[in-house]
């Protein structure tokens, strides 16, 4: 059997719906289905296979390729000159501060020493929030007063790590929108001063089509090294993971699956794929 466009049209439409209802951004769902149509038309299918099976299988493989294999952060740190400096960034409310706390906890549990920089000096209660997290976890925090220059705080955090031979610096930063030029300039300045080894972009699983726009903009401004997708417990199908990975082609590092300190899973593709394909 050679597959014609007619054979797979309906299955492709069904699958595009599956992607859309799993909260994959519209242009990404469309691009993936278009790509699959080109790949499949003219290929052979076995007698026992239905067009539906062929298409579903191909989609599964396409998504696996888009999502990538994750990023072994602990190996990266162990093989890298210390301190390894990681900057966390993203738009407002996506879970950056909570992710910094969870990852600090995770790295400590893997035998690494961590210092956290309170890089959000703007939002009300931000310093108090990270201070409480660090006190609970027994993690060293470097903070200045509210309204201080974030670049100065994070510079001091790096200096502290160098002086104390700390393995990892985790730098929190204020939520900011990609269409705020002054805030994106501030982010660029933070990056120039702090010189992070890794920039982790944090977004949430429940974000829809805007996840694509903002991932693109942050990628352009600060060139991210990895993505942390939070609130996957809120939206287990996690379509935003596909949207973001497709758009900026960077690895997914962790999935946030709750508000507790242990609710941070190193990314593996099956975590998302099994939810979408059941």
């Amino acid at each position, binding site marked *: 059997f050679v597959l014609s466009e007619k054979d797979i049209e309906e299955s492709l439409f069904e699958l595009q719906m599956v992607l859309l209802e799993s909260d994959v951004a519209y242009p990404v769902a469309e691009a993936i289905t278009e790509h699959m149509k080109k790949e499949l038309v003219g290929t052979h299918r076995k007698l026992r296979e239905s067009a539906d099976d062929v298409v579903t299988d191909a989609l599964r493989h396409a998504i696996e390729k888009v999502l990538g294999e994750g990023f072994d952060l602990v190996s990266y740190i162990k093989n890298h000159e210390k301190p390894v400096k990681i900057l966390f960034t993203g738009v407002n409310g996506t879970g950056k501060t909570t992710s910094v706390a969870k990852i600090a906890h995770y790295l400590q549990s893997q035998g690494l020493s961590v210092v956290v920089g309170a890089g959000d000096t703007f939002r009300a209660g931000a310093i108090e*929030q990270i201070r409480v997290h660090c006190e609970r976890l027994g993690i060293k925090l470097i903070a200045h007063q509210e309204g201080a220059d974030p670049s100065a705080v994070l510079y001091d955090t790096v200096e502290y790590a160098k002086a104390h031979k700390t393995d990892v610096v985790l730098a929190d930063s204020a939520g900011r*929108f990609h269409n705020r030029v002054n805030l994106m300039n501030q982010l660029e300045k933070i990056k120039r001063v702090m010189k992070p080894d890794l920039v982790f972009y944090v977004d949430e699983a429940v974000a829809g089509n805007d996840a694509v726009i903002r991932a693109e903009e942050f990628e352009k401004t600060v060139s991210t090294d990895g993505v942390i997708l939070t609130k996957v417990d809120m939206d287990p199908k996690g379509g935003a993971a596909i949207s973001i990975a497709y758009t900026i082609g960077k690895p997914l590092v962790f999935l946030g699956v709750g508000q507790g300190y242990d609710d941070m899973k190193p990314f593996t593709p099956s975590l998302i794929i099994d939810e979408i394909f059941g």
Partner: protein
Amino acid sequence: TLSNSLKDAMKKLAGKTVIDRAAVDELVRDLQRALLSSDVNVKLVMELSKQIKARSLDENLPKGINAREHVLRIVYQELVNLVGKEAEFSLKPQKILMAGLQGSGKTTTTGKLCRYFQRKGLKVGAIGADNFRPGAYAQLETLCKKINVPSYGDPKEKDAVKIVKDGLAALKDVDVVIVDTAGRHALEDDLIDEITEVNAYLKPDHRWLVIDAALGQAARDQAKRFHEAIGIDGVIVTKMDGTAKGGGAMSAVAETQSGIVFIGNGETIDDLERFDPNGFISRLLG
């Protein structure tokens, strides 16, 4: 861009006095793309498409307007039907309960609402009933102190109902009490139970769902659960100063059979405005 293809499809109908099926089909396809890219619920988009197609082809072209205007009117009417309903509230003494997903903007919006009522000449106070997030009360207190509005909170108290009880006593001299709560989602049964208890104790005049403008397809199921739990009677869409179109808000409004009360469009305490359906819809269409 999407809005260009929608405009082109509209142009194809321009000047026609008879609406042909092919032109309507093309227009509806472009409309679907625009709405789906704006996070409107997939099933809702399909229902809207059917409605718009049927009305465009079945309804007689009113005298004096061309095919393009006719279809455009139908599209706008159908969309206004979904978000146009006014969420009523008045400037009298009242209690307002804030609810929503983690990080949606509840605490910030509570501060903004305090500012809003203060400017209208009412005495207002806020209760920080978020018993979970570190620094939650510090955040609310800082916002309220900036505008000289009293607030109550107790970071050591784990019982949200008790915080509300003590807060009401502490704020007995204000007209408007706004209660901030911890973020929660549909799959957290214990937290849904908690807000059900807070609602039952507080008996608020309004229960407003705060949703992020960028919320995608999850909007429908989340709004549904909140509505079943506490009977949402208004929706506030935050972070509209970003690039998100707010399509999820349509589902929130549809599931709660309410309307959009306010729009949050910035991080400062004054960045709150009343909802304008026409502006919202044109942004939604690209």
